[in-house]
């Protein structure tokens, strides 16, 4: 999976404007929406990520200094995303700890980004909430009709249509 391309797809679907800045190799994916801006860096290995993230961040921020100076309060909302497809469980804690470094940018860092789902998980703080439970009206009566097969139809009918419970109980006794 080409993380950069896939990231642009995901971010654009989330309403971001994205483009690639080719001043680095691989290119840095720049993104912006009404509330924030960010740069997504892709590394070959987790080790590269740990060694090069700061330099990469510095380079792209320097490149966009003018823009950020003109951004006003938005300049506080800069994200740096550091990703690698290499699965490196040993280094993952170190990589994740980068996120607790608040200097200059809010950082998102992850290893083992091999699938689109991995990418979406990694970019989750930037994305709208995905899970949208669709709680349609559920009708107990309809479900009851399909469940209460052991009851005589007349009993079920009485239960559903007669308001007085004593009358219903009486009819249940007469049902067969």
């Amino acid at each position: 999976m080409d993380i950069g391309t896939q990231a642009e797809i995901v971010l654009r679907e989330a309403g971001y404007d994205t483009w690639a800045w080719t001043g680095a190799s691989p290119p840095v994916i720049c993104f912006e929406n009404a509330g924030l801006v960010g740069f997504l860096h892709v590394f070959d290995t987790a080790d590269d990520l740990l060694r090069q993230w700061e330099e990469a961040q510095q380079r792209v921020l320097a490149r966009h200094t003018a823009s950020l100076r003109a951004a006003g309060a938005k300049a506080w909302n800069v994200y740096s995303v550091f990703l690698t497809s290499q699965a490196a469980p040993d280094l993952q804690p170190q990589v994740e700890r980068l996120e607790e470094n608040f200097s200059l940018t809010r950082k998102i860092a992850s290893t083992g980004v091999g699938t689109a789902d991995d990418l979406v998980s990694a970019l989750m703080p930037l994305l709208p909430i995905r899970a949208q439970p669709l709680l349609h009206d559920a009708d107990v009566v309809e479900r009851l009709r399909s469940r209460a097969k052991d009851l005589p139809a007349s009993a079920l009918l009485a239960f559903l249509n007669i308001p007085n419970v004593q009358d219903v109980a009486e009819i249940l006794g007469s049902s067969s």
Partner: protein
Amino acid sequence: MKLGYVELCGFRGFRDKVRVNFGPGFTVLTGRNGVGKSTICDAIEYAILGDISKYPIESAGRETVKDYIWWRGKRPPKSHYVILSFVDETGKEFTITRSREGGVDKTDGEIEAALCGSGAPDDPLRQICRTSLIRDEWISGLSLDLTETQRFDFVRAALGSVVGSELATKAKSVVGAAESACETAEKTYDLTRSRLADVLAELSKANDVAARNPNVASAIAVVDAAVPSDAGDLARRIDIARQDLPSRHRRLEGMSAAVFEGRELEAYRASMNSLEAVKEREQAKAKLGEAQTARDTAQAEVDKANQAYEVVAKANEVAASLSSLITHGQALGLYEGHYCPLCAAERTDIEFAEGLAAARKRMTDLGAEVNAAAETLNLAKAGLSQAEGAVSAAAATWARYEGQERTLRLREERHIETFERYQIKPAYASDPDELERQALVERDELVELERALNALEASRAVDAVASTEARANALRRDLDVAADELARAQKAVDFAKSLERNVRRSATELVDERLALISPLLNELYQRLRPHADWRSIEYSVRGDVRKFLSLRVGDNLNPQFVFSSGQRRAAGLAFLLSVYLARPWARWQSLILDDPVQHIDDFRALHLVEVLSSLRQAGRQVVIAVEDEALADLLCRRLLSTDEQIGRRYVIDYGEQGAADVASKQDVAPMATGVLRRFDGIQAVS
């Protein structure tokens, strides 16, 4: 539906009128501890519900929370009220005013209609407040620290009612009604059984007493023989037998008469069928025939004599006239001596005398002929009279015999009618002796039956047996009815329980399905808020049938309630409460209000919360959040989306000069610049 504004005066720590115009996008309330940030949230809840639910203890001493709703400080306020305004998507405003003096200006129904849509749960206003307003005090208390059952109930209630969920209550009521009816039927059945057992014991004793009296015992046997036992109890059978006695008597009388008549008929028939009688009848019939023939002959002779007589009599009438002429002519003599006075012919006296003599002779001859004819006629008539007398005598004799035969037939017919009337076997009609034997048997039985009845009726023991038997039979009938009723009631209970099970199962399935739908949302929010560094996802499961449990598990089936720190529990609790808040399909009011949600949460996790709130803002939700930390307030104002249409606002709450809470400052958060990165993209050199 979003919050428009809240205006309060004389409410808790706000003495003077304060109005907070909520930003349609978001509102950040900040200020030191105790300045009244939470009071703004309280005012929202109070306007909707009429109380404040954040205090776990509602009363202390003689005071309750209600005693602290309104300003209690020095210098009384001008008024005591809260006004809460909502604005819907079309800009239409809905306000609720609650004042100390005037109460509320809207009914709960009106408020529900404005804030809640279809499928709202029970007590919808409390539910909407509970799920829209996330207070610091309750973050853990309403999530991880709930028991699993309470947690299930909390989520189920928040998700809203399932259509037709009232059926569960109804089914339960039906079970209650059926069980109550069954209990009554069971009591009636048991009571009847108990009474029957008592009466049967009594009957057994009475029977023993009756059996010890041989007369009574044999009398009962006689009654048993006369009236079948299936006709009822002994008293009933005695009654039947007594009522039957007259008909038995009549039958016996009929049988006796039939015996007598049978014998009479037998004798009569024998006499009629004897050879002499037959011969006599034949002779009588022959005599009648002969007499009739003789009568016919005599009649013919009379007719002939009569004709002869009539001829002679006619001639004799001429002779009478001739006699008159002779007498007259003799008296006159010849007219003028030579003329006949009768024929005017010229006659001599001799000739005249000879003529008269000849006439007299002629008259004499005619008289003799008449006399002879009359005599002959009289003789013929006498013969006819005699023949008719013989016919009459023969006919009378024959009629007597015919009468005897008619009488026999008539008596036979009446005899058969007697058999039919008394239902006597027709075979006995020709056998009076056998009929008599049968009559004797029946008479004997009747006598014995009457004796038995008299004996039984005279016996008090039998009376006791009869009345006890009657009571026992009545109780048996009652028991049958009670058993039928009990069976019906038990069937009703079975059906009702099955119904309740099915309703519960159906509702449970639907609720479980709905709860299952929010599991991914909870997990996503958990992942976003990242309460724990290692356990990145949370398992959410519903179990139980009668009692339902909603359990949360992290890692290797660990309960986060017991392995998470206070801060982690709050972060996980926020994920839980936010997922509940987002999963309410029935809530028209969609503002999220958080009252100091970041206590005990480190900066990193506070940032995650801000990012989650930012996502909610991106989706158009209105967020109101009260925080103490100015830096966090700054962060919120930067990260929550503010647009021209959905502006964000920041209020600083502080004590005023008079010591009452007040709005110290209000600031609209300007929308961020857009397209900033691209703006200088082309003019900067690569560094």
